[in-house]
């Protein structure tokens, strides 16, 4: 049975599509956006997050870790990330709730009971299940299987994608996907590369393709000053040429995620500047003007 690496399952998600939803975050992303506020979902490998200030030095982790990644030195706890194999044993015993494992392997049969628990919440609010990430479509076979199962249970499905995936992956999930939540970060290729490390050619092509197939699409534009802020008009013009866009959401960038980078031992790439409320209002107005 195939399994996927899952970062997290968020129940009662309100902003990942319509209604009350449960969102499944997949591990691993095909892009690397500088402003990413879910650093735990960038890498494909399992990662242990360690929040130093929560650690109470109880030493429980030392007892269970077989690779010696946790040690107590002079009464203080020290974590040697390089030794960690991501088995997850220490998370279970950590008394300070300082440790959290991102990237548990889960099968469809393990996910489904959790996703079904809130079925009536979905029904009563016009919600459902959203697959997100990371880039969930990097594990497209698994997604297809999961989506199929969700549809068998009459659950509304959304796939949140950055679009930097193969056409094949999109084709696989398309029949079982009710709506795509599609990120558009830049129109200009060089800007896109600067922001995400990759060209946006495939992304825009995939978007046109999905649109041609007649699938519903909700567009999400992260708005990051000094990065993609100059792109907004171009993006708007491009979007106005699509037929099946049901909603455009402008997501103002925030920089709350810094502590997550630290807890994961990753380099913090977050831009400092956050957008003003007025600017966001203006952008939203612009989208309305072009009929979005």
């Amino acid at each position, binding site marked *: 049975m195939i399994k996927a690496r899952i970062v997290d399952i968020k*129940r*009662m998600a309100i*902003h990942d599509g319509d209604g009350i939803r449960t969102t499944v975050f997949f591990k691993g992303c095909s892009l690397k956006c500088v402003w990413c506020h879910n650093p735990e979902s960038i890498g494909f490998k399992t990662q242990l997050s360690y929040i130093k200030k929560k650690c109470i030095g109880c030493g*429980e982790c030392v007892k269970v870790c077989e690779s010696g990644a946790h040690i107590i030195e002079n009464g203080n706890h020290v974590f040697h990330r390089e030794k960690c194999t991501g088995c997850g044993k220490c998370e279970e015993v950590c008394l300070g709730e300082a440790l959290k494992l991102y990237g548990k392997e889960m099968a469809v049969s393990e996910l489904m009971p959790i996703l079904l628990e809130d079925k*009536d*919440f979905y029904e009563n*609010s016009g919600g459902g299940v959203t697959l997100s990430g990371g880039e969930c479509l990097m594990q497209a076979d698994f997604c297809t299987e999961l989506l199929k199962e969700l549809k068998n249970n009459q659950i509304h499905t959304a796939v949140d994608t950055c679009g930097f995936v193969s056409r094949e992956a999109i084709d696989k999930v398309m029949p079982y996907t009710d709506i795509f939540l599609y990120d558009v970060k830049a129109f200009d290729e060089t800007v896109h590369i600067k922001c995400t490390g990759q060209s946006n050619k495939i992304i825009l092509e995939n978007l046109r393709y999905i649109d041609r197939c007649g699938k519903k699409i909700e567009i999400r534009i992260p708005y990051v000053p000094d990065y993609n802020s100059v792109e907004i008009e171009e993006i708007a013009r491009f979007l106005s040429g699509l037929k099946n866009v049901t909603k455009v959401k402008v997501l103002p960038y925030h920089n709350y995620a810094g502590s997550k980078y630290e807890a994961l031992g990753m380099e913090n790439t977050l831009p400092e500047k956050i957008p003003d409320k007025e600017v966001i209002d203006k952008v939203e107005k612009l989208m309305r003007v072009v009929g979005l």
Partner: protein
Amino acid sequence: MKLGAFETNRKELEKQFEQINWIVQDGVDETALITAYEKLLQDMAGKPKALIKAKTFELILTKAPIAIDKKDIFQDKLLGAKIMQKQRADWEKEVQDTYLQEEYKEQSEAWNEFGAYQGISDFGHTSPNSRLLLYVGITGIIERVEKAASREKLTDNQRVFYESCRIVWSAMQVFIVRLADAIEPYNLKNSRALRNIAAGAPGNIYEAMQLLIVYFFLHEYIAGTRVRTLGRLDVLLYPFYKEDIKSGTFTHEEVKEMLRYFLHKFWTAKVDYDLPFALGGIDADGNEVTNDMSYLIVETYNELNIHSPKIHIRVSDKTPKDFQKMVLRCIRGGNSSFVFVNDDIGIKTLMRVGIEEKDARDYVPIGCYEPAVWGVEVGCTGNGGVNLTKAVELVVTNGIDLRTGKSVGIETGKIESYEAFVEAVKKQISYMTERAMDYIRKIEGYYKEINPDPILSSMYDHSVEEGVDVYEGGAKYNNSSLYFYSIASLVDSMAAVKRLVFDGKMLSFEELCQIIKNNWKDQEKLRLIARKLPEKYGNNNELADELAKDISEFIAELNLNHPNGRGGVFKPALFSIDFCFFAGKRTMATPDGRLAGEPLSKNLCASTAMDRNGITALINSVTKMDHSKFPTGSVLDIVLHPSAVSGEDGLEAFYGIIRTYFNRGGFAMHGNVFDASTLKKAQENPEQYTNLQVRVCGWNAYFVNLSKEEQDAFIAQAENAV
């Protein structure tokens, strides 16, 4: 009706209950009034209490100083000098001293010192038939009394009953005319309205509101009965509204202006625990009642930005969604004085105690969340309660209150297995419940001596027909209640005992007892393990949820439908109101890792911050219990972050939460929308947040006025919000 006058005069109206210019008539000032009352007591010594009470009421209404508010369009003020409140307290004391000295001492110690259980008399939770008042008026009520009294072969008791009913309502007529005379030079319309309601049924919506106000303030402020609901306000006022608009008596705008004065009056009066009324839901025939008045009331109330009276929204499957969303929008905007209640369960739960379906359909939530039939049942929904979590302490100590060292429970002996532990917990719960019920039954036998209530009784058809006071069992349904609270703290503690001691074998039960007695001293690691256990109520965890279900069924067996002391039955409730703080202070450490004195879990909520999987999982857990077995009600409070309910999507999600809770069999839900950071700021800079309101339990309070401990509990809950 001068439109806009309310806004102009609002500031002054706000002071109307603080600065009162009493009009002393015939030299009867406060002192003279008290002297006259004392004389009355002497003259009537040995007479039936009902008669003494009626005469006292009459004395005050006909003689005491009155006051008028020239800026107001409704009049109500009378100086009662708390005479009747004191009268009832004296009579209750007399009964306690004479018949129930030991019993009373036991109850007050069990509550005030041990925070364990409490049975008390309850004259504060009623649901008078305000509909009768408006549709037949005072004169109509008197006529009905007269008619019943004209039967042949009345007993002495009945004669006294009818006589006292006549006295109180006639006294009201006199009082209303006194008000009319006093206001006449300043407001002829108001004066005329007053004269009309003294002489007959209200003829229009203005008179209807005036009568409701007079009645309420007389009953609650003078006669000293907590009214605790005005009934179904949209049902009450709509017929008048429709007629007045049709006949052109008033315009829609004029009615709205009246409503401003009307609602604002209760806010200004700062009615204790906030006076509720209900909107929406089905009527006796099963038809949805939501009407233009329902919308207008919510709209006006929200525009006034007041938080009392509080509003219960009854929701049936026919209640319009746009009406519900309108209310949700108010909650989202910061008005937390609304509670949603589920008609399906409200009706089903009342039918469980033998209430006929057509009666059950006409329930109103009284007080905080307690359903009782409007004008047909005397619900007495405040007879005290049982601290479920205390049972664990009592098993640990073998029946001793740890804080005081005094004996409170029973001896449950040495615990050798988990099954024995569960048995022992149940025995302690059962003991506490029995003690409380025993006292309630006994004191109920003396209600007639403590609080005969001719005003209330004449508003209950059955009581009038039988000629029996409602507090003597004269209503069609005469029920009592008991709150069972802190179920989450209890369940988490039981699960911890299972996991740590009997399954996990980390330590023996005796060792755990010692640790509990020492308040987890030097056992921080173990305490954190206990807190970290996944078996916590509110997370859709099987063990915890099964325990909650088992305990709730057990409580129902102990209390539901057991006879009370006045011809009715007990109706249990699953909520805590603010007892979770009071009793928490008196409850020692618990196996779930809670420290001595910390608050216990509130209402149906999880223990503080222990609902780790969000609201949907919490609701999954909570609705595994059968809420219909708790006819005095149950409530789940949820806290949502403003971002979770922003926009139309957010509102739809909010609606979805409530709808799902109800579909799954939940009874009442109360939502607060705020974020933890705002609350923290308010805690630090109270002077900047004097207006921030939160719903404590069944009533609202200014956040900055809460104790540090209560504030912390709110912050913890908000930090856990989605």
